[in-house]
């Protein structure tokens, strides 16, 4: 591959060091001389996100610490973690795409697949199971016509069976996006879903 003109000038500016026993020339480019690549905009995030991100990045001695909370905030805006977002995050935090994906795959709230506008998460862990969490889940499955991790055709609801959400004393409980609904009965769950359906239709 031939160096283009900008790289050519770099070659001239750097001071090649000859390694005699290899018969090679090694170029050490000072970082300040590397061509300045304009940061391309891949994904538009809200000002609130940018403000939060800029603030949070100063809380830690290393940049990558900000990754998990900011991925979750970005997911709230985009619906899911798109490839563009992953590339964007990797670039901002000096990581590879793979490192970002590696983190995403660990946390159960992060998803790289689109899901419904309202994510219904029903807890069926021990405390909820004893008080009818499984019935609530079955009820939601029938009512929405989807299974675990499924999404309705209109894209309004998705359903998920989740582990303990920390509402054991008020079991059975469910979360729709981030809102808690506790001491549920199938009738109460119906009302909750109806309310969201109404909001979603607007």
């Amino acid at each position: 591959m031939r160096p283009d003109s900008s790289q050519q000038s770099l070659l001239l500016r750097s001071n090649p060091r000859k390694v005699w026993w290899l018969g090679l020339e090694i170029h050490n480019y000072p970082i300040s001389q590397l061509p300045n690549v304009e940061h391309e905009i891949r994904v538009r995030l809200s000002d609130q996100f940018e403000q939060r991100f800029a603030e949070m990045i100063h809380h830690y001695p290393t940049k990558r610490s900000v990754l998990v909370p900011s991925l979750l905030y970005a997911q709230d805006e985009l619906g899911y973690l798109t490839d563009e977002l992953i590339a964007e995050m990797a670039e901002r935090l000096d990581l590879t795409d793979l490192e970002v994906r590696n983190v995403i795959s660990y946390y159960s709230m992060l998803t790289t697949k689109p899901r419904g506008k309202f994510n219904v998460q029903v807890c069926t862990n021990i405390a909820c199971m004893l008080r009818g969490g499984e019935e609530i889940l079955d009820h939601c499955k029938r009512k929405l016509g989807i299974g675990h991790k499924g999404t309705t055709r209109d894209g309004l609801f998705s359903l998920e069976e989740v582990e303990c959400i920390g509402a054991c004393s008020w079991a059975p409980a469910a979360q729709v996006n981030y809102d808690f609904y506790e001491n549920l009965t199938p009738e109460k769950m119906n009302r909750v879903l109806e309310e969201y359906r109404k909001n979603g239709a607007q």
Partner: protein
Amino acid sequence: MFMADLVPHPDEVRIVSKRFGQGAIDIDRYLELDGYKAVQTALGMQPDAIINEVKVSGLRGRGGAGFNTGMKWSFVPKQSPKPKYVLCNGDESEPGTCKDRLLFEHDPHSVIEGVVIAGLSVQSHVGYIYIRGEYRYLSNIMQKAIKDAYARGFLGQNIFGSGYDFDVYWHGGAGAYEVGEESALMESLEGRRGIPRIRPPFPAVVGLWGGPTIINNAETLASVPHIILGGAEWYASLGPPKNGGTRLFCLSGHVARPGVYELPMGYNLKKMVYDVAGGIANGRRLKAVVPGGSSTPCLTAEEVDVPMDFDSLMKAGSMLGSGGVVVLDDSTCMVKFALRTMKFYQHESCGWCIPCREGTDWLKKTLARLHAGGGVRKDIDNIQYLAENMLGRTFCPLGDAAAMPTIAFIKKFRKEFEDHLDGRPCPFEEQGTVEQLPVFA
């Protein structure tokens, strides 16, 4: 937003929950309720005096392990080339536990105060409060509380005009039980997968970004200001020896009045179930109690007459854990209960240590087969054997947490496991609701 309702009981000793339901989210209201007095007292104390006060109070970790908090702080080296950190663990995910949530919801400033005092005791200048991702509304509350405290000069540079600098930041998770373990928590805060680190070195020596780190549960840290204000002797006198103070017990399951109650340490479990929680609902009978979150071995109905403190429960063959008391009545199938518990651990195992990754998966499969009537007699011994071989063979206690309750279920309810053998469907379920599996003998 749903505000969890709080049901009072006359036996409650309200210390950590003193300000619940009194609007202490607001910083002015918090100051009226003796807020930020403990930090000012602590600023006038020597670091060693703070550690000693906490040590004498007998405060033990409320997250589950029950280690003496003052002792933990004293392990932090005095001189360190790297910065020291305080990390508050609010990644509450243990099934049966819902206490930190109330703490953040009703009294976020007490957690901040606890973090600052812990920082003063080891001369650290930065604290992090980690809140699980599902608790989004709580992290909003916490962010506002931190902002308010900065605005008043209670945090940041020169706190309370003392010349001491202390910063507190919040951090959010994104759904992982494993991250509640201290070394995985640090990994997660550093922006990685929450995989545990080998110990030693312990976090008190090599922790966050290699610096010495104090990691405590949110309830532990929220108790510290009360100890500084009320005195260590007073706090220690509330509970039995070496188990100072009170703790938030989360009663759930088949009881008439489930809820979070603050009771003194050493409170009788039987009284807790029958009196505080109003007994078993629907006129049924008690079968078993899981005394400290799903990781602790269960107690049968005959064994429940025990004081709820770390040492007594250890003697009774169980653990106080995180204070999540799950009560089971006689309509519960123990095999199904064991299966659901194992399904949780199988889902949450991070896969780093093979005994845990493979063990939880095989235990789940075997238990599922047994519950569906496809088990053979040897399965019961196999489950126990497999679980016993997971104990102590993993980096973090998740493997133990999965194995211990399983061993207890087999030991204490073996008869029920045997009732599922020979192709019989689950005796607790209606005929035909459990899908029948073929028996391979």
